[in-house]
Each structure stands twice: as structure tokens, then as C-alpha cells.
């Protein structure tokens, strides 16, 4: 059995759809879950989800469980909150080392659609000491001792065989789940999710959350400065001519 860890982040639904409230599974993570759900039909894989999040993450975790996850570690503690990428990496790394130290593969969405730093996957691979593959567009197969992936980056498209263990950063995304069925969803809703506190994880306070962060947002500034615009009146032709004149200058 091939053990695969998926790092999950729940993000504001309104980032994809202004009407949507609450949190959704980060679209890049969702692609990974759907992909693994397909593989599960033909390959002997075990999928373990890890997610740092508060109570609002529950709905996304239920869907993740329903889609493909055999097990989920829910890192839910106020002490984990307000973590920057360094603190997030240390927390996820501690959880993986403690609960799934023999993972064959760790797969992360390339970036979260809130935040968008895209730093955690590489940082995590460094902490775990495993090979890192970025810009993964697709996974072709999971073999006995290696997997085959497709990497698409700035200059090339490569098919690569990667020996376990490794960490993938996936650049493909999905905004809706297609593999979700009602029965699985109902079962997932009834399931008991393992909530892991910082004590249970055994992580030092200075290694997680705001206390473990190395960066901090001190404030925000408005960058869109309003201007007084000159309105061009007249007929459509006059307006068009005005612009043509401006371009000729």
C-alpha cells in the first residue's frame, strides 16, 4: 500500500464566487484529492489528509473525507493560528513526522488562493528532508517504489519518474468536485475527526502560530489613488476621434 499525505487548506469561498460564503477546499488541493480519488479505483493507495484550521474548516474536511481521504488529522488549536509560511511549515512537518513518518508521498497544492505565496511546499520538503518537485501538472501513475509525474515549468514539459519518498507541489486546480457522492458525504458527516491540539502534537509554542512566525504584517496601505478624470463628451465619433488624437501625440 502506498501512503500518500495530502496537505489541505480551507480558503474563503468568495474568492471564487462572490455569492459563496464560508470556506472551501483550496482549488489546487481539490485537484489533488480528485486525482487521488481516481487512482484509488485502480491502485492500492492510502490517502491521509492534514489540515491546519479552526471549526470553519469542518465542511471542507467532510468533503475531503467523502472524496478520498481514509484518515484526516485536523490540527485545530488557537495556538496554530496566524502562522506565516515558516510556522505553518513547522507545524505540518511536526504532524507528518509524528503521525505518518513513513509517508511515500506528500502532495500539496502549489499555492492557496488566499495568501498566494506558494512557499509552503518547498519549505516543507526541506524540513522533511525529501525530494521536491514543483510545477507538477499531472500524476500519471503510482508504482511500487516510484511514481511518474508530469512537470510543466517555464521552459519545458517533462515526464519524470520519482522515487519515494518525495513531495509534490501541484499547479493544476479544480473549482468544483465531481467525484462526490451522497452516501460518502453522509458517512463523512458522521465520522469522528481527530482534532489535534498543540499539546497533543508536542510542538513548542515558539514553533507555531503567530509566536513561531518570522514575518508579520504591520499594516496595509491603499495603493489605488483616485484621480480626477476628464470626461470626453459628444457623439461616439467625437469620443473616438479624441482618443485617436491622444494616441498620435
Amino acid at each position, binding site marked *: 500500500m502506498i501512503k500518500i499525505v495530502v496537505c489541505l487548506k480551507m480558503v474563503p469561498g468568495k*474568492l471564487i464566487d462572490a455569492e459563496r460564503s464560508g470556506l472551501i477546499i483550496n482549488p489546487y488541493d481539490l485537484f489533488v484529492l480528485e486525482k487521488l480519488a481516481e487512482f484509488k479505483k485502480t491502485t492500492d493507495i492510502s490517502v491521509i489528509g492534514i489540515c491546519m484550521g479552526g471549526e470553519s474548516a469542518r465542511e471542507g474536511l467532510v468533503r475531503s473525507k467523502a472524496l478520498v481521504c481514509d484518515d484526516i488529522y485536523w490540527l485545530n488549536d488557537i495556538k496554530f493560528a496566524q502562522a*506565516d*509560511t*515558516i510556522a505553518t*511549515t*513547522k507545524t505540518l512537518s511536526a504532524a507528518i513526522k509524528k503521525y505518518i513518518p513513513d509517508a511515500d508521498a506528500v502532495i500539496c497544492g502549489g499555492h492557496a488562493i*488566499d*495568501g*498566494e*505565496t*506558494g*512557499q509552503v511546499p*518547498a*519549505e*516543507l520538503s*526541506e*524540513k522533511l528532508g525529501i*525530494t*521536491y518537485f*514543483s*510545477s507538477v501538472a499531472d500524476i500519471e501513475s503510482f508504482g511500487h517504489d516510484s511514481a*511518474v509525474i508530469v512537470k*510543466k515549468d*517555464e*521552459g*519545458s*514539459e*517533462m*515526464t*519524470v*519518474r*520519482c*522515487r519515494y519518498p*518525495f513531495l509534490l507541489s501541484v499547479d493544476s486546480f479544480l473549482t468544483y468536485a465531481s467525484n462526490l457522492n451522497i452516501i460518502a458525504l453522509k458517512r463523512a458527516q458522521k465520522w469522528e475527526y481527530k482534532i489535534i491540539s498543540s499539546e497533543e502534537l508536542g510542538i513548542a509554542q515558539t514553533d507555531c502560530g503567530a509566536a513561531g512566525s*518570522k*514575518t*508579520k*504584517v*504591520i499594516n*496595509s*496601505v*491603499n*495603493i*489605488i489613488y*483616485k*484621480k480626477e*478624470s*476628464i*470626461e*470626453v463628451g459628444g457623439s*461616439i*465619433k467625437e*469620443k*473616438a*476621434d*479624441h*482618443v*485617436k488624437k*491622444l*494616441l498620435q501625440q
Partner: protein
Amino acid sequence: MDKRNIWVVCDAFDHVDSFTGQLISKAYQLSKESNGCVQVIFLGDTSEDELKRCALYGADEVVYQHCETKDERLWLDILSDIYSSIGADVIMFTNSDFSKTLSSFFASRFEVGLTADCIDICFEDENGFVFERAAMSDSVQARIICIDSQCCTCTVKKNAFVENVINEVKELSIRKWDYKGSFNTDDTYEVISCVKREIENSADLDNAKIVFGVGRGVKDKETFDLICQAGKKYNAVVVGTKCVVDDGLLPKKYQVGQSGRSIAPDIYIAFGISGANQHLVGIRNSRQIIAVNNNENAPIFNIADVKIVADVKEFIKEFSE
């Protein structure tokens, strides 16, 4: 007190364009504000002349490690070696995919602050180095400092800074580093096949003086084609908002806005763009913004120099005559 070391990590393989020149220029400016010393950490295979050019933009020192392999893990070890020896207060990387990985590895190894895709950096007496990046889906820019961190690292967005040849004559010291670790390649993977893709050249967009922007208000292909035609006539590059790119009208390299490119042409004409902040972030440095939209209250008019309330389709028909 000791001078602050401000590093710019330069990748010889990728050094063809002005990206690292932009970073060195910024580092020079910061060094003046913070009593710093600009050190360019140059990795790869290059000539003495190329190293000397760093002085043009304000470098004080170049630390050069000759290396024929471009590999993130190897470069991490080399950078770590140099860092452990001479230290740094600020490390600037470009935001190429390679640099994003390299900087993430470095920040994780040394547990230091890393800010992604900076669009500005400044030095303030009370806060030290402040890094600015676009905040999530907003018209605001987050200002970030490093806390409890031996050095501050960041990746920088292309064209965030301007390449600037300095006025003073600088004495540049070139130090050849002698990394004693191994240069063995990783055997945990094997490339089965590799197809080279045409590298998306963005020089046309970087240098364009006139740019036409297409938004959701451009509702049909006919209107879009007319805009492109007009673009050819005026030698303008046609770009689009995220919606337009997501719809497949334009390739990603022409997406302008928060998650796309930033541009600063002389004239930017926005056709049917409502003016969501995510897009405005990418065009705000244009010299003159002309906006065409049939909604007189569209937010784009808040930052336009010239306001044209008109149906885009009707307008472009007249405009293309």
C-alpha cells in the same frame, strides 16, 4: 555599527535580461538608507566582465561561485555555505520558479522570514526593512517586517523596481568562492522524457508604450477582433483581465493584474473593464489611463485620466475607422 549586508542572488543562467539589474539598483538605494553594503551572490558560469557590470547598478562586492549545474538543492548548499561564513541582513531573489524554490528552501533551513512577490522594499528607522506585497484580493498592499529573524529574505516581482545606472564610480571587489561540497546530481529521480516549450517571451509587454486592455465588457469575438486590429495599427499590445484570460480569449502571459503582470506603458486604454482592484494594481503605474465603459459609475473611472462613457462595441467600430 557594522554595515548591513544586502544580498542580491544572481543566477548566471538567467541573467540575460534586466531583472537582476533591477534588484541591484534597489539594493543600492536601500544601502544608502540603511548604512548597507550591496553584495551580489553570483552563481553559475559567467565572465569577469559580466561580474564587473554589477558595479554599474551599485554593487560593492560580488561573491562568485562557479557552477555548471543549475539545481536548487546544490545552490541551497552553496548559499548556506556563503551565508554561514559572511552573513546577510537582507537577501533579495528574483521571483522566477527556480528562485521561489531556492528561497523557500533557504528560509526553511535557517528559519528566517520570507516575503513573496515584493513590489516594494523600504528601510524605516522604527521598523527596519519593510517589504510590501499585494494583499489578497484587495486594493491594499500589505507591509511586512521580519520578526525574530536573523535575516530578511524576499522574492521580488519583475518590473517592481527600475534598473538604474548609478552616478558615482564604485570600487567593486570580486571574491571567488570556493565551495568544497560535492556537485553530485540527485539520483532520486529520472527524467523519462522532456519536451522543450517555447519560453514565453514577455519583452513585447515590458517594452510596450501603448497597451489596450480588454475586460468583461467586451462581449463578443467581433469586438475583441476589432480591438486587436486597432492594436496592430497603433503598435499596441493587447492584454486582458483575469476573467478574459480564464475565458480563453488571451493567453496567461497577457493577464494583467494582481495575479498577472504589472505594466507601466505611456498610454493604457481600458475597454469594457469595470475596474476591480485586482486589475488596477497591475496598471496603476501607466502614464495615462483612458477608460471606455458604458457604465458611468464603473470604478475604473476613479483612476482614469480620460473618461469615456460609451458602449464598447460602438466605440471600437468608430475607433477602427
